[in-house]
């Protein structure tokens, strides 16, 4: 039954409907709680909107400029060290919440980007250059430097292990 509905309307709509149902159930129990989420939701929407436009632009440009063959060459199995550098630096430079990048990465994956590089990209989203002063303020330079170095190193390990466990070759 659930599989038939998912096939008919799409998994993404089933997911959104499930969340709406969850909200409905919560509202019937505690309406004030659901009311409290609305300003948070509004703030989130406002914050992610510019990022959404940016990601739309990047997706449009990759669709326009790169064929699947080029993506495979740059980010696929034979991408080598250049692929890793692109994934790591892309993860560090990219801004906004992690989930905003899923559509672009899903698109690139369909066109040949390998799992290890997707995992490395997502892992390096942890290092945010504009937030470094804040981390230094709370924990100091030594902690910030050591943690950032480990994050980059472990992003590679994470990528290699993910690739191995998801069935591909690193």
């Amino acid at each position, binding site marked *: 039954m659930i599989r038939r509905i998912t096939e008919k309307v799409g998994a993404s709509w089933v997911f959104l409907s499930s969340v709406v149902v969850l909200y409905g159930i919560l509202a019937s129990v505690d309406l004030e709680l659901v009311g409290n989420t609305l300003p948070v939701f509004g703030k989130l929407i406002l914050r992610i909107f510019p990022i959404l436009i940016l990601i739309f632009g990047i997706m449009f440009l990759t669709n326009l400029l790169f064929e699947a063959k080029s993506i495979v060459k740059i980010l696929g199995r034979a991408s080598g060290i250049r692929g890793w550098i692109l994934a790591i630096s892309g993860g560090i430079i990219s801004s906004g919440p992690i989930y905003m990048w899923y559509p672009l990465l899903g698109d690139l994956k369909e066109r040949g980007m390998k799992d290890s590089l997707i995992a490395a990209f997502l892992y390096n989203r942890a290092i945010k250059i504009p937030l470094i002063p804040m981390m230094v303020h709370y924990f100091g330079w030594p902690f910030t430097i050591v943690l950032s170095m480990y994050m980059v190193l472990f992003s590679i*390990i994470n990528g290699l292990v993910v690739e191995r466990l998801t069935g591909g070759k690193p």
Partner: protein
Amino acid sequence: MLTLKPNSNLMTLISLKQAFLKTVQSFKRSLPILLGILMLLSLAAATIPKSFYSAIFTGNRVVDPLIGASMGSIAGGNPLTSYIIAGELRMQGISMLAITAFIVAWVTVGLIQLPAEALMLGKRFALVRNGISFVTAIMIAVLTVLILGWT
């Protein structure tokens, strides 16, 4: 003999239109998932008070990093929020091992985003990546604290 020259302007226009439509299609598939994730994150932010985080640590040096990584995995969101919470935890005497595991898991593991990640990047990929990121959050915490001599 008459030869037809391809009109480069027309070709560019067609390519632009095709790329635009393809991008719109991808976005249409992703938008309901993004909207659902935003609703779940709003719910988590509105229901979990910041004081909750400090209340659940035990003071045990083995258990606390696990709690830290678990809390970071469930909560997630803007890294800035994790620094602020972590700063408060530090002032309350929570170990740096637990705090570091919390910060790393906050940004690398996402249980709330897991359904979206599974839908867009594959179920196996999402489960494996988040599982490994959870383990490495604890490993990074141990290594960072060891190298800084904060044990």
